[in-house]
């Protein structure tokens, strides 16, 4: 009966102060001793005391507290749900009603959620970096191009002039030399022809000797013919390294006449190439056609008219000089470690 003493003091207070008090009051009202209840519930008196005193933290996990409260309420015929709700409301903090395991889990789940976002952010960053790198790469050639275009725009006249001035085309030089010779008067011919005849065409001299024509007139008659052919030969021979002797000046004059015609085209998309050391060259035009795909020997010169963009590759970057639309292109800082050069001209 000592049990009924203490509760009475408690029940003198507000009966709704806690689930423990409410249960205790109901038990006392039914005249049920604590020991009897403990026997019915198969629980120790200590646990029931903890329940009645609202010391729920003494019981290991909330699931047990709830279970005990529920069966206690059932025995004393109180509304189970009402008691449970009050317990949840007043004695459990936060939504997850689980003890140690639950709290740990809740924290872990949060950090895992963060991990998931981290993964997505990293993925996004990598994509952005890749995109940026690709953009930079695709930007690089067009940047040099715009530079070219800018310099071209800055001085369009030199570009037009530049086309004929640098290395005149060998074929043109030869042609010009021949025409010049053809135009020269016959009287001059022997004098001019004599030199080449003597020095460069000894076999012809011997042939003339063996013909037995010793008379001067006959020789002079023959001379113009030879003079015509000899410079012809000389011009073509010299064609490889034009620029010496008489051929140069005529060439310079002669080009003045044919150039105006191709000049507009040249100013457009002409590529000139001078090879100073043997190099492999691979030049492709916009349609992917191989315009040059060969080993170029030192001293070779090339001129191309091609539709941009032109893709160029040289095996020996130091052995090539490029002129694109009349502007020399500096290859020095494009030469890679293996001596190769790749460049796109647009």
């Amino acid at each position, binding site marked *: 009966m000592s049990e009924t003493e203490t509760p009475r003091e408690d029940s003198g207070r507000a009966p709704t102060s806690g689930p423990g008090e409410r249960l205790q009051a109901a038990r006392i009202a039914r005249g049920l001793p604590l020991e009897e209840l403990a026997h019915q519930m*198969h629980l120790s008196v200590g646990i029931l005391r903890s329940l009645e005193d609202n010391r729920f933290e003494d019981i290991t*996990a909330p*699931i047990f507290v*709830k*279970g005990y409260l529920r069966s206690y309420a059932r025995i004393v015929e109180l509304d189970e749900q009402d008691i449970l709700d009050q317990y949840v409301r007043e004695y459990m903090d936060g939504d997850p009603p689980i003890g*140690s*395991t639950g709290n740990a889990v809740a924290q*872990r789940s949060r950090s895992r959620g963060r991990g*998931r976002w981290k993964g997505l952010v990293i*993925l996004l960053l990598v994509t952005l970096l890749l995109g940026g790198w690709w953009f930079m790469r695709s930007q690089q050639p067009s940047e040099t191009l715009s530079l070219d275009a800018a310099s071209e725009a800055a001085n369009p006249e030199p570009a037009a002039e530049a086309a004929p001035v640098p290395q005149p085309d060998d074929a043109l030089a030869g042609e010009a030399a021949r025409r010049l010779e053809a135009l020269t008067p016959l009287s001059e011919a022997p004098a001019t022809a004599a030199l080449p005849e003597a020095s460069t065409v000894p076999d012809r001299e011997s042939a003339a000797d063996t013909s037995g024509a010793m008379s001067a007139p006959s020789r002079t008659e023959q001379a113009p013919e030879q003079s015509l052919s000899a410079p012809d030969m000389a011009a073509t021979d010299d064609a490889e390294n034009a620029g010496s002797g008489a051929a140069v000046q005529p060439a310079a004059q002669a080009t003045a006449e044919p150039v105006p015609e191709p000049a507009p085209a040249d100013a457009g998309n002409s590529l000139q190439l001078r090879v100073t050391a043997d190099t492999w060259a691979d030049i492709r035009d916009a349609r992917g056609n191989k315009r040059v795909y060969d080993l170029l020997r030192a001293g070779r010169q090339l001129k191309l008219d091609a539709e941009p963009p032109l893709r160029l590759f040289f095996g020996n970057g130091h052995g090539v000089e490029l002129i694109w639309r009349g502007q020399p292109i500096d290859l020095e800082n494009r030469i890679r470690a293996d001596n190769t050069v790749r460049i796109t001209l647009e």
Partner: protein
Amino acid sequence: MFSAIRGLLSNDLSIDLGTANTLIYSRGQGIVLNEPSVVAIRQDRGPGGPKSVEAVGADAKKMLGRTPENITAIRPMKDGVIADFTYTEKMLQHFIRKVHENQLFRPSPRVLICVPCGATQVERRAIRESAVGAGARKVYLIEEPMAAAIGAGMPVDEPQGSMVLDIGGGTSEVAVMSLNGIVYSASVRIGGDRFDEAITNYVRRNYGILIGEATAERIKVEIAAAYPGEDLLELEVKGRNLSEGVPRSFTLNSNEILEALQDPLYGIVSAVKNALEQTPPELGADIAERGIVLTGGGALLRDLDRLIMEETGLPVIIAEDPLTCVARGGGRVLEMIDEHGSDFLAVE
């Protein structure tokens, strides 16, 4: 690499692949699916013709026992393990898709599946394979009572004995756990299905009337009790009279059902008693002080806690929302795997 990206887009799932119901818990979303483990198969053009899945889950359950010749409604799980591999895979596939319905890509989630602790190696592997076949990126297995205890909120990580009794559709599992491990576990192939079967048999024996599975289940849910109570519940049911061959209606009361359920109930009680016998004394003392926790759909059987309490003399507590304990516990374990490693996981 690609599957990892798809994995970012899929939610990790914890699946309680039960004999009666399949529950799926999705991380951060809670229980997202609770459907009967039933598949309806259509087979046109006679035997040997092509088979196709007609319905899965609740839709298929409605067909149970009501199908024409070309449709068969089957339950691919039996006694907590896979009975029909192909249809279990189809069913899982359907459920996994269903919880990822709003996604563009084919889901490739990490999946944690609960297996009965009595499952053999072959049965475990079958479950793993079927989950992989259903599109899971990675499959973890966990023993059901462990998941149930974690889902119920028992302090399994403490050096204290915790006993859980999980009564499912096909099996009942009883286990004692301490320090995140299972100390003792046993599985008996008695569950909700056996209760239904017992009711069907009782009605046939005593009334000469045949009732279907669905009716037996309704009787169980509405009036069955495991312990004689003060109030007597009655239910009118219909079945086919075996001698007359015509449907008849009759009335059953809860005391009759209690009698019908004696056998399976005592099977479970003796499993619990066995477990208590096998439990090391220190842990047994902890259990005696705090009690046994009931989870699983079987825990909803009226007064089952009272029966076990009277039989064992120990306090018995029914977990909150016992049906979803296993799936929720699995979900928690899934969350812990990343941080903690796989303490809880079952080996194959």
